[in-house]
């Protein structure tokens, strides 16, 4: 799976949790999930669990702590998938 495909899937997973639709429309790897997309921090765990289910990976607590931006999520998923 290419990074582009992972990115598209990540954005799709984030969509239901995003409060700032404008930021989502202009999403880039640098977009911060909590600050820019305004995803509730309590919901971030649901997002990461959705990553696990969608990509068939397991994310440890410590790995989850490294996810701040969309790019961080993509990088983490790619490192687990490949």
């Amino acid at each position: 799976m290419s990074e582009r495909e992972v990115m598209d899937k990540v954005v799709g997973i984030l969509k239901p949790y995003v409060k700032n639709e404008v930021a989502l429309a202009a999403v880039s790897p640098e977009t911060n999930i909590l600050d820019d997309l305004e995803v509730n921090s309590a919901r971030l765990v649901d997002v990461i669990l959705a990553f696990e289910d969608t990509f068939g990976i397991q994310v440890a607590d410590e790995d989850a702590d490294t996810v701040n931006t969309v790019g961080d999520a993509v990088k983490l998923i790619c490192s687990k998938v490949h």
Partner: protein
Amino acid sequence: MGAIPLGIAARPASPELSLGSKLAVLLQREVSRLTAPIWMPSAVGVLWLGFDYEVVGMERLRARYRRIRSQSDAPLLICANHLTMIDSAIIAWALGSPGWYLFNYSAIAWNLPERRNFAYSPASDVLSYLMKCLPVTRGGERAAVADVLNRFVYLLSQGEVGMIFPEGGRSRSGRVEIETAAPGVGRVVTALPGCRVLCVYLRGERQETFGSVPARGERLHLRLALMHPRSRYFGLRGSRDVAQQIVAKLAEMERKHFDARKRRRGSRRSRSGARRDASAV
């Protein structure tokens, strides 16, 4: 509910924390303990005399807390519903007297207040330091939040008590909100094998929704329930499962609180009705 008998040897291994961080929290604990004879009676004075609060059944609550503490060496985490900014102070006051705390200092719970509310100036920073707080920025950088949680877990593994509001913030609806369960609380519990959770439901008689502080002269009711949450899942899924179990317990306690309130009001109404009937006769 009985406690899991865990001896000192069964205490969980301390989480990975640098020596510097360990020393920093232990230093904070000692500075807090040494200054407690000043700040603790002052804080109680503000609640009792300043706000004129009354905790219903305080002696019973304190006896129960003492019993829970003495039953086991296993880590103890207090999880409460959250309606006002001073809930943790009220709960601490309800569960022990200043005199008892001075000789049982680990029984005063460590808190994880939102930095923007409690550590926003040098003065509030000092106060939160003295009052066993580890300020955290909600939604802040994940690594920074994780570092605070690790310090918190370390303290609990050393026999200190901690307090968390598992809804993650004051309940905007005025009721326990199961869907806002913050997974951080589950992460703390799953990091501490055998961890006991003391659920505390707190509400004033006239308190209908969230606010800064309960109304002056409020009569405060507390309910306690000890639980040992477990999950068949691991990692994040396990943390979320445990957090949801705790918040569900708080929601159940809330239902019991309102049922009891309805019964109290019903019996008060029927008593006053009977008095009216008697005076009419």
